């Protein structure tokens, strides 16, 4: 799906074709879901957040100037939602139990890909997600946009409105910081 195809769907949606919106959701739902899931770490919160993001996108489409930039615009919208939800949850002590030493998340890595292995991988994912969720906002967002969403440096720079060089330097710092947070699990 190219930017051109997305722009066509956005145009169709502007003209009242509701199906175009469903297609846009199908294109972006996995990416936005992964972003929210890792940002707030809780599955139910992420689901509600993802739905709110798309609802806001639908209702705010009039603010989008360039149809071809729908993806970047959606990410900006998603990150704003994530930040607000994260702050609210943090005030309520939602993240106070984030710890890599959590006895409820025993980490045992094995080599074979059995059902047990898949279960263990889910535990590993939970620990990685917890570690990312606890990072400072800017570093977390750069890490998510680059390593989870696989966006280019230019796209990240435009979405977060920060210089390209800053994106690169902060990305390396974020990766090193996450490595240190996960060291106990990785070794």
């Amino acid at each position, binding site marked *: 799906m190219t930017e051109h195809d997305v722009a066509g769907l956005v145009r169709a949606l502007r003209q009242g074709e509701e199906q175009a919106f469903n297609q846009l959701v199908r294109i972006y739902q996995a990416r936005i879901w992964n972003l929210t899931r890792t940002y707030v770490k809780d599955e139910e919160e992420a689901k509600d957040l993802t739905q709110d993001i798309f609802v806001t996108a639908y209702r705010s489409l009039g603010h989008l100037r360039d149809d071809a930039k729908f993806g970047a615009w959606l990410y900006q919208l998603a990150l704003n939602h994530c930040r607000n939800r994260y702050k609210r949850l943090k005030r309520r002590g939602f993240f106070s139990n984030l710890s890599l030493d959590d006895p409820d998340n025993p980490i045992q890595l094995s080599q074979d890909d059995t059902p047990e292995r898949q279960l263990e991988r889910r535990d590993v994912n939970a620990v990685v997600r917890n570690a990312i969720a606890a990072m400072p906002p800017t570093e977390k967002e750069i890490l998510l946009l680059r390593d989870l969403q696989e966006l280019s440096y230019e796209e990240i720079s435009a979405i977060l409105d920060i210089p390209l060089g800053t994106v690169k330097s902060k990305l390396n710092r974020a990766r*090193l910081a996450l490595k240190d947070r996960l060291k106990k699990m990785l070794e």
Partner: protein
Amino acid sequence: MKECDEHQARFTPYLDQELTASDRQRLEDHLAACPHCAREWRLFSLTLGHIANLRHEQPPSDLLPGIQAKLHRPAFWIRLRDLASRFDFSMSLSAATATVVVAMAAGLFFKMHLAPVGVPDQATQQVIRHTTPLIIPGSRLTTVTNDFRVPLPQVMAAHPPSAADWEVVHPDVFITVRAETPQDILLLQQALTDRHLFPHVVSPHGLMLRLHPDDLPLLGEALGNRQAVVFPQETVPPGGPRHKKLLLVAIRLQ
């Protein structure tokens, strides 16, 4: 160790193949020679692999139906809920305790260090129902007409050190006179004494005097062409408070 930090700062450019050939060679030589950095590089790579694993998680199947349901919900409720979600009134126990302590300390401070201000309460407010000029018919004094709730004037005798010494005086007639210059109070005092009306309290902001109801026209003469507003009390009957032998008149200049 500083050299190791410099090399680790190049891990990402190394992955992105953005290093020059010489820098790339230096980093690779260092990783081959330094067990600490070699281990950090291994952990760095593993970390990226774990982040990549998160990409494969699929969203819940009911995501789109949930979006459709929210879209068809009345927009008002969505807005109301979003508005409420922006305001989070929850606070930690320590913050709540601190707020209460600060409020109590502030209250104590005001009680101990600041003189009480005579704030008129409901009982000290009077309803003015006069429509007849009280002092001199035909003069330029402006009387208050219709039902108009105003705080009853309170005249403080002085600024004593303790609240117990405050004296609140309820005059029978209260007149606010527009003052153009600070000397107006002296000119008004002179105008009164010329008519044998002698104020017993004179301050930079006003004066008080007692006079017989029959002398009210003299008071009107003393005020002359000054712009003034009269606030009589409800107990003062239209046509003049003639049932009293002496009236307490307070004149404030502002």
